């Protein structure tokens, strides 16, 4: 327990001070990317991890929020209005997405979400009057909340950090709550949950909405970060990537998706500078994770840590207290 708190405090301090010790704007931008992809992965983890519903079309929801923001800014809306309306559009889309996909679970759910993701991708690609087709939409300025311009890398980083911290806190609270417990229950024993008086479909629906909210927020950060959105952002590979983040880091854990997001973003943007075949490396890492730590990096590391700790204790000479168990 105390090891957990130490890790959390060290992590928080490192993240807060990061702009002061990180060499160069480039790496700071990588850190920003990790943070908003982490929010995306945390959002998916609600469904894929805690709900047992592996959505393979989540990039569509991410993309809808990003496109809506870009489109509204292009048509002269201010930043607050654009962000707010984009969130409403994304939530409405999520509701529709949930109603259509929650007709099934398991493989059926995966296939429906995959199809829905492809439909949205097709719309982004073909509905040129709205999305600009292959050319995408450019966003020319970042917002200035409270007079702080987010144009600088460090200001944008702190924005991402605040959103990330809030999202993490939100999920930490949610998973301990009755609704969170009910969601995990519907993953493990849906039939029993129904017989115990739970509305399984409604629980999954609200979980989808929460997941969609975080996904949309991440999408808006994405479009402000890149200042550009194109159909590639909501392609199947993008959906698969975020599923891999969740699984590689550790599904249904609080920090697994964060570690997964860091891994994918670092390999994609940093390692790809040195290695042409970075895709190969990413693949090899995933294979290694699946073989060595099938539960994901975070739970796997915790398991190894505890194992090592126990061995260290075992190596110490045993001291017997009178009448007590060996210490």
């Amino acid at each position, binding site marked *: 327990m105390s090891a957990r708190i130490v890790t959390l405090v060290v992590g928080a301090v490192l993240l807060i001070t990061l702009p002061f010790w990180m060499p160069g704007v480039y790496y700071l931008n990588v850190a920003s990317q990790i943070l908003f992809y982490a929010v995306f992965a945390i959002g998916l983890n609600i469904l894929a991890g805690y709900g047992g519903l592996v959505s393979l079309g989540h990039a569509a929801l991410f993309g809808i929020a990003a496109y809506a923001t870009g489109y509204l800014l292009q048509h002269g809306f201010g930043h607050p209005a654009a962000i707010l309306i984009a969130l409403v559009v994304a939530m409405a889309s999520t509701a529709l997405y949930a109603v259509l996909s929650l007709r099934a679970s398991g493989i059926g759910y995966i296939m429906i979400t995959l199809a829905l993701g492809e439909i949205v991708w097709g719309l982004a690609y073909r509905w040129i009057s709205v999305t600009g087709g292959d050319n995408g939409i450019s966003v020319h300025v970042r917002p200035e909340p409270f007079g702080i311009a987010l144009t600088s890398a460090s200001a944008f980083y702190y924005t991402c950090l605040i959103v990330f911290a809030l999202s993490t806190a939100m999920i930490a609270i949610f998973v301990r709550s009755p*609704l969170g417990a009910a969601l995990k229950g519907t993953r493990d024993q849906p039939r029993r949950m129904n017989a115990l008086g739970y509305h399984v479909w409604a629980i999954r629906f609200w979980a989808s909405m929460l997941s969609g909210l975080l996904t949309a927020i991440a999408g808006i950060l994405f479009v402000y970060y890149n200042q550009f959105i194109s159909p590639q952002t909501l392609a199947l590979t993008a959906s698969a990537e975020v599923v891999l983040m969740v699984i590689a880091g550790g599904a249904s854990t609080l920090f697994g998706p964060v570690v997964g997001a860091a891994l994918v973003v670092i390999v994609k943007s940093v390692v790809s500078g040195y290695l042409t075949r970075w895709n190969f490396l990413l693949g090899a890492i995933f294979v290694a994770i699946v073989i060595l730590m099938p539960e994901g990096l975070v739970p796997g590391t915790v398991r190894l840590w505890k194992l090592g700790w126990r061995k260290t204790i075992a190596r110490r000479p045993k001291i017997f207290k009178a009448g007590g168990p060996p210490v």
Partner: protein
Amino acid sequence: MSALTVSGLRKSFGGLHVTKNVNLNVESGERRLIIGPNGAGKTTLFNLITGEIAADGGSIQLLGKDITQVPARRRPHLGMARTYQIITLFAQDSIMHNVLLALLGLSRSRWNPLMDLGRQRHLVEEAHQALERVGLGHIADRPLAQTSYGERRRVEIAMALAQNPKVLLLDEPFAGLSIDERRDVQKLLLAIPRDVTMVMIEHNMDVALDFADRITLLHFGEVIVEGTRTEVVADPRTREVYLGH
């Protein structure tokens, strides 16, 4: 007043008629035993009563209210609870968490996304009481994965009891238990007060007969014999299709 009335209940899976015009009337406070050879349609009857599968015809009344069209998830709220023949628990969680989920199912706070479930004193307290009733209070925090089969059977019963049902459906609560465990479960079932109506499916005649006020014998989806304990045991048809001697 009758606690549970089933009339003209029918269910077919394709050409297989599993439930054929079943009529059943269980009085309030009664202990009813349902027996029958394998494949007689006993568990299907339970699944129809709890609404987990929809009937093709007929009606079900709970405490005088027609619940035929009420979805399965609403029926526990009306006072119906069940246990499963095949243990259906939350294997990754503690015994306590399993019972908490049962309690939460009937609580309004099951929709709450903000409060800490573990800190809901009254729920934890109630769950503890249910576990004490089945004699598992001392290992409440043990992960389910580290419990014996007999303990899991009792967790099943604790979850049903925690919901404070008026009608309790027990699907083979003694299946797979040792003689000692059977005696414990029997004692615990006999201690349930008479304001709970119980319907039990069971093969284990030595423990089940003590329990029953009335017995219903099902055979190929039909009620063949129904009556008091002595009547049913003495009936030649019972001997022919079930007791086999």
